[in-house]
């Protein structure tokens, strides 16, 4: 190893550095690859984060199968299904936004981003109504679990220890909803940058990795939905 000397200054060979190429990167490809790798690594830790919750879910489900079955009937399958569809659709529009950004179509990108944000907001709104119903019905975590009969869905009798089911329900869907909120904030920021014209065919890294994150959020829901609502 050794260090090298330098060649002429940039202005000499006419290869100007684009403004969006950060100081510590040599090439746009390096910057793009690094950002993607960084997001994948971040998602790896997210997998373990939610993974731990899924393990706890499995342990409790294995310990109290009857209680889980009865409590899961209290969740609104229609709202859950709607939310699944909304979220999958938003993943599609996020992917389309990346595609549009890649081709340098600024207006299309903005449109797709806007639809994605709107879907995410719809998802949260539906989640809000679901939570509100659980609060009204007293279907709350731990000792706060005090079901009120007239608000309950008819079905199997709720076990008195269903508090742990709702603890997990609120914990897991709540953390997922938090990820949705973060996604919305980042998408809005991306949208603003897009409107300002920060992205181009050559540079759309931020759109790409945010969409990557969004697909992950979508994927988590695809696991949460059957585990809580269906089985």
């Amino acid at each position, binding site marked *: 190893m*050794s*260090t090298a000397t330098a060649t*002429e200054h940039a202005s000499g060979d006419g290869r100007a550095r684009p403004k969006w190429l950060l100081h510590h*990167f040599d090439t746009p490809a390096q910057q793009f690859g690094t950002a993607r790798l960084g997001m994948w690594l*971040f998602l790896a830790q997210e997998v*373990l*984060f939610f993974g731990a919750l899924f393990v706890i879910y499995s342990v409790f489900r294995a310990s109290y199968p009857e209680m889980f079955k009865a409590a899961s009937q209290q969740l609104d399958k229609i709202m859950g299904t709607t939310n699944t569809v909304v979220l999958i659709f938003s993943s599609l529009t996020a992917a389309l936004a990346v595609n549009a950004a890649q081709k340098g179509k600024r207006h299309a990108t903005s449109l797709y981003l806007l639809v994605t944000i709107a879907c995410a907001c719809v998802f949260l709104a539906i989640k809000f109504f679901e939570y509100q119903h659980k609060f009204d019905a007293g279907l709350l975590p731990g000792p706060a679990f005090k079901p009120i009969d007239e608000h309950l869905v008819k079905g199997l009798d709720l076990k008195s220890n269903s508090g742990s089911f709702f603890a997990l329900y609120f914990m897991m869907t709540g953390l997922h909803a938090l990820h949705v909120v973060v996604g919305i904030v980042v998408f809005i920021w991306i949208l603003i940058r897009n409107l300002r014209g920060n992205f181009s065919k050559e540079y759309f890294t931020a759109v790409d990795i945010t969409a990557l994150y969004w697909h992950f959020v979508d994927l988590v829901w695809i696991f949460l939905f059957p585990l809580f609502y269906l089985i």
Partner: protein
Amino acid sequence: MAAITTAPGTYDEVDPNTSYLENNKGLMGWLFTLDHKRIGVMYLISVLMAFALGGIFALLLRAELFTKGQTLIDAETYNRAFSLHGVVMIFLFLIPAIPAALGNIILPIQLGAKDVAFPKLNLLSLYIYVFGACFAVYSMIHGGVDTGWTFYTPYSSSDPAHGGVGTSSSVIPMTLSVLIMGFSSVLTGVNFIATIHKMRAPGLTWRRLSLFAWSLYATAIIQILATPVLAITFLLLTMERFLGLGIFDPRLGGDPVLYQHFFWFYSHPAVYIMIVPGMGIVSDLIATFSRREPFGYMAIAMSSIALALLGFLVWGHHLFVAGMSEYATMVFSALTFLVAIPSGVKVFNWIATLYKGSISLQSPMLWALSFIFLFTIGGLTGLFLGMLAVDVHLHDTYFVVAHFHYVMVGGTVMGFLGGLHYWWPKFTGKLYNESWAIAGWLFVFLGFNVTFLVQFVLGSRGMPRRSYDYLPQYEFLHQISTVGSWILGFGFLLLGAMFVRSLLNGRPAPRNPWGSAALEWMTPTPPPPYNFVSDPVITRGQYDYHLATDDELYEGFDDPLLSHKSRKGGVDEGKEDA
């Protein structure tokens, strides 16, 4: 020496002939810096403060144990002191000490990079760490915690204020603190893996990576994959204490042993977050001070990765007496022994590196050799604890306390101090007083062994850990241990004074004071803002002493080798390009 540069123009913003310390002076220049070296230095200051605080708690504990019954403080205070000693040392010091402080300063230079992959994320990670530490301080102001650093449920989660059976101490801010600092650790891990993959200078192949970089790579894998599990565990613990979720508290239908599985799923790998980077530093130190390429370079590198992966499979050995099935204990015991193999590979290769070397016993090397001795003892006593029948006797006794101090202090702290001595001239630009350094090492090494060697005997004789009081037959050994802690404390004070003296009036350090062949010593001292005067191209390995020129190794005490090749100066350009 090859000569190319890539991406010209990137040096426009900074003058490569100033050092990173002189560039952009002023408080704001530090607080909002994106320079990995400055972030690393700020991390270093933070972890050293945490180390001092944890050390004060340790001295308090040892003083209390000097006599049977009450010596200084009551049981309640003692329980808080040992818990805070553990929390501060592990979460505020050991975990960030080597990767976030020394790693941040040195890794990008060792890679020939201008910075880490995500400089903003790097700064964010520092501020998340500080923010998390504030929660810990808040908890301490409110009396701290008395749960031990392990926060076992239901003692930690069952709040007497809600009719629970556990502690009434300030648990929630402390678990939140650890949770928050976890994010900082994850960000550092993400940053380092991306940096090592994508930011290496041309010619710096994987086989030319420094062993310190390999160890940080392994560490980052653990940081990314283990930390989120701790985050979720502590989030659940916090919610459990706050709302009574019923996940870990048996009175609410939960399972306290489940908590232990989750806790150790993180905390055992976390041991490797602490020790593996220390091993990386020692590998570099032994190479430099033996003037020899590490024997079995690839074996050392791969053993770091092996430790990182094996670390995920052995958490169960913390639960041998907690009530697992016989089958599970058998599997975890067998897997635990596997850890001995990569650890052994490292030690054997280090010794083989010494063989026919040219060994200089300068202060960093003393720490490296101490690491080998103490880590060997720490590792072997780990085998005692891996043996099921023996573990049943020794579990949760002072034997375990001594064992992990031999690994954490004898390993990580020795590695950290070795690295600190070694790279100090590079990042401060100052030399320190070698005699003081050797005296400090002597006191620390002696004090450490006096403190902890007797604790093995205390433990094998049945003295349980975390005990305020003890049976009379343990008193004498406790007294030896306490005296040892004073020697140890004095040693650290001496080292602290030495470093402060060096900052105030140390002689300016030359480019390569140790005569090392590694890349970080090829750049001026202290390094320029973007680490090198011009983009480096790597033409030999970090440890190729037989390929390094005399210029690179021995010259440079006044004449930084690189300055005459600087792009701006450009005097040698023609020759180099030829």
